């Protein structure tokens, strides 16, 4: 027995009610449930059929969220590796290190610290503005699991900023270490920004496609 469009919408509503709120998770579950129901010999009542299957649907939804989170963290490191494979990366690093070495010889320690931290904060402020703009403009976060976890990519790079403060004095005693730390944090933050931008474009395309059919 083929399920009607109305039945499929009822399954969609049922899953939504059961807290499977993301479209990109729901549509795959709907297809599975409909395929299974339609293949049964004696069709049970749709509600009782769904009640029996909701536990694995929730299990799949939770597992997908975890996979997505860790997958994104992995992609961040892959992006860093892509940077490191480029010869420009080493050229730019060399130029920046040379400039900062010159600054270190002519500036006071206090000014030098500001000069080093400035680009780092610059990137973070840019990320924050980017996040706010996209979050309020699109509101995709509420609808897609892939968008919901997207900005978690910034967590680890930002953590480097938070742990900088308690070790500030130690870092300033060893300027090469300070430069290395900030340099690494900067690379990780730029990689995160590039990765988020890349993924966001993909998510927007996916959302547009799904919106036309499901929502």
């Amino acid at each position, binding site marked *: 027995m*083929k399920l009607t469009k109305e039945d499929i919408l009822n399954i969609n509503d049922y899953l939504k009610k059961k807290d499977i709120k993301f479209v990109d998770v729901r549509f795959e579950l709907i297809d599975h449930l*409909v395929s299974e129901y339609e293949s049964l010999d004696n069709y049970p009542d749709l509600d009782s059929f769904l009640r029996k299957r909701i536990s694995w649907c929730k299990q799949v939804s939770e597992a997908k969220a975890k996979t997505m989170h860790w997958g994104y963290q992995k992609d961040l490191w892959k992006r860093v590796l892509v940077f490191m494979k480029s010869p420009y990366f080493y050229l730019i690093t060399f130029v920046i290190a040379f400039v900062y070495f010159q600054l270190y010889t002519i500036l006071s320690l206090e000014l030098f610290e500001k000069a080093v931290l400035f680009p780092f904060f610059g990137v973070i402020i840019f990320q924050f503005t980017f996040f706010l703009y996209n979050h309020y403009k699109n509101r995709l976060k509420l609808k897609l699991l892939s968008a919901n976890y997207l900005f978690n990519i910034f967590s680890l790079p930002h953590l480097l900023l938070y742990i900088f403060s308690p070790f500030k004095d130690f870092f300033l005693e060893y300027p090469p270490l300070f430069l290395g730390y900030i340099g690494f944090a900067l690379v990780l933050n730029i990689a995160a920004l590039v990765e988020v931008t890349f993924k966001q474009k993909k998510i927007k395309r996916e959302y547009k496609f799904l919106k036309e059919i499901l929502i």
Partner: protein
Amino acid sequence: MGNSKLYKGSLNTIILKLLEEKGKMYGYEITQKVKELTKGELKITEGALYPALHKLEAEGLLDVEVAKVDNRLRKYYKLTEAGEKETVNRLAELEEFIRSMQNLVNPKWSIE
């Protein structure tokens, strides 16, 4: 099958192998194909299948394609280039494992 636990470690390889043969498949189709090939001996549960598919997708071994089928969307999985290479490796590992198990369970004794 009395003990599905024996299959547990091979789930990803089973999925990769099926996709290598069929080109592209969707979740429910995979469960049915496994059931058919094993004559009902092995039933892949949905709670195990989808997390495995999503993990393989996140690892870049699978690519997805979404198509509209009968008033709903269907997500097809297919192997990426990396997935094709990984399938060959994992099948070789599995075959080696099966050979070792056969030797352990059913050793061929010989007098040399």
